[in-house]
């Protein structure tokens, strides 16, 4: 009983991490139709900012709070300068954002010297429930993820800004004709997606430690999750992330971790092949 509770908790916390990372990727892919190869590097930047804060004596949670804003701002700037040239050609977008990711990743690698750096968590230790110990921080991650998801949903469904975003999502031409500045919406969306990635990086760095290739491992899982979930909606990528995250965390409990690793990807690609529209097709929230 206790053991299965621990199992569920651990799987849920890992899935939550993936959801957080993929949320931004999915929003950008749904809205602008491009796969942002640099998303992993936004995660890395979020983690790096948090590390910087903690290594300079600033409390970690301040670094974590600042990371999404800083990364979001960078995303906004990048979108205006570079990304918006790529909207017409998704393949070129992949290559361009790949080049961008290379730049960001190597800059960070140069700054941290290719090593693995640890960052302490703001709320450490474990929560004891009877005889079961669960990591307090991972619990916090689950809570934050749920809060972020609810916040995003409310933003999209209940605010006028969200209304404009949804309009641009469903029919950009008509939205423009109705007077909505799609360029600004795209800029805001990209910034938002980047900010989410930054948040994910900040929250995750105490668990995974900081290293230059942190982004790549999430990137591929992220892409697969978005495709499995379905591009074009808000809940689609989230569903995909939940599925991929759950599978990645749960399979190692029942089989050798090495096989579990590969199996997740094989199953995902097979699924996409036979259901290209993903789990939840359709646009909008």
């Amino acid at each position, binding site marked *: 009983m206790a053991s299965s509770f621990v199992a569920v908790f651990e799987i849920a916390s890992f899935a939550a991490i993936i959801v957080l990372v993929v949320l931004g990727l999915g929003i950008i892919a749904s809205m602008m139709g491009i796969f942002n190869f640099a998303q992993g590097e936004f995660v890395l930047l979020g983690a790096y900012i948090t590390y910087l804060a903690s290594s300079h004596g600033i409390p970690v949670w301040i670094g974590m709070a600042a990371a999404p804003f800083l990364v979001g701002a960078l995303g906004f700037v990048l979108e205006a300068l570079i990304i918006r040239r790529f909207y017409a050609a*998704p393949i070129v977008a992949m290559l361009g954002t790949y080049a961008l990711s290379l730049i960001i990743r*190597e800059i960070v690698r140069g700054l941290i010297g290719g090593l693995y750096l640890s960052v302490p968590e703001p709320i450490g230790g474990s929560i004891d429930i009877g005889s079961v110990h669960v990591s307090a921080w991972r619990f916090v991650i689950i809570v934050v993820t749920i809060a972020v998801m609810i916040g995003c949903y409310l933003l999209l469904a209940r605010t006028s800004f969200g209304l404009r975003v949804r309009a641009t999502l469903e029919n950009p031409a008509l939205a423009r004709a109705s007077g909505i500045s799609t360029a600004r919406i795209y800029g805001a969306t990209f910034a938002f997606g980047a900010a989410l990635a930054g948040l994910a990086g900040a929250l995750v760095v105490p668990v995974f430690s900081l290293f230059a290739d942190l982004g790549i491992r999430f990137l591929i899982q992220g892409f*697969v999750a978005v495709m499995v979930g379905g591009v074009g909606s808000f809940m689609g990528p989230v569903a995909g992330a939940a599925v991929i995250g759950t599978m990645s965390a749960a399979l190692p409990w029942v089989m050798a971790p090495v096989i579990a690793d590969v199996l997740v990807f094989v199953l995902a690609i097979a699924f996409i092949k036979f259901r290209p529209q993903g789990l939840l097709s359709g646009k909008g929230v």
Partner: protein
Amino acid sequence: MAETEVAGLAPATAQATTRWNVLPILEAVVLVLALALPLVLPDYLTVFATRVAILALFALSFDLVWGYAGIMSFGQALFFGAAGYGVALLGRDLNISNLLIVLPAGVLIGLAFALLLGGFLLLGRHPTSMIFVALGTLTGSYAADRLARGWYYLGGQNGIPSIPPMTLGAYEFEEGPVFYYFALALLVVIYLLCRFLVRSQFGLALAGLRENETRIAFFGYKTQHLKAIVFAIGGAIAGLAGSLYAFHEGFVWPNMVGVVISTQVVLYVLFGGSGTLIGAVIGTVIIEGVSFWLSDNYRDVWPIILGVLLLLVIMFRPLGLISFVLTERERVGRFGITPTNDGHEKVGHGAP
């Protein structure tokens, strides 16, 4: 895509025939330089040049697949590395290092994997989106990397070291000028074969595929099969490169199938210029060469510079460096129709 000069435009035609064809000149220059290299370089630099030649062969496979068929294969290293591992296992477990066996084995392994993956990703009732193919190949390469890293029989993280040198009868191919010329010869042969392929009628269909896939489909061409064939050929060439690489370096390791090498070859071709074959070679030479010379002092900065250059190329010169010297018209090529002075079309076979 054919150049049709009508009699009425005689003056323009006259100008067209006196324009230099840059491409063959470029190819000739590169070839001459490559042949002369071991004569001027010390041995250990010739060894480096051999590695570059093998990587150029690998880049060629990607150019074929992307530059000519429009398939963004982000996982070319899967075929490169799989062939490398395959021949390494032959060398380690069965003690086979005869080049007449291992090189064809590499080609077959690359071909097999490409048929499998390409068949899965490209064929089917509905044509698959290019994004799916790109991500699918990327995932394939990544999954292979994870598998190679985890499978102890393949050496796991450490890979397979101490591969015996390639042999031909009693002769061992040690690194040095001999291996260099051998690799160069293979590169030239494959290059010429590719050149022939893309200038042929098959190449014409590919050009149409690149420009407008649905229209070509309406003409009756089976676009999916075309793509799968090119993908398979690309895989075979990558496999050949992989087996050469394994024997030259003497070891294989999981990075050879992984995402880094996959994306590196994309870099080479993007930089040099896709869809020209020689662009792939030039891109490889430039990037590898500059990496080598700069990595001492600017080890940390060079990848950043590379990324910036690449971004600039993608944004402003998507056709690569070669577009500085090559016109788009020449890049696409003429399919057997050579304009002549008197304005009549003369149909010929093969490329200008």
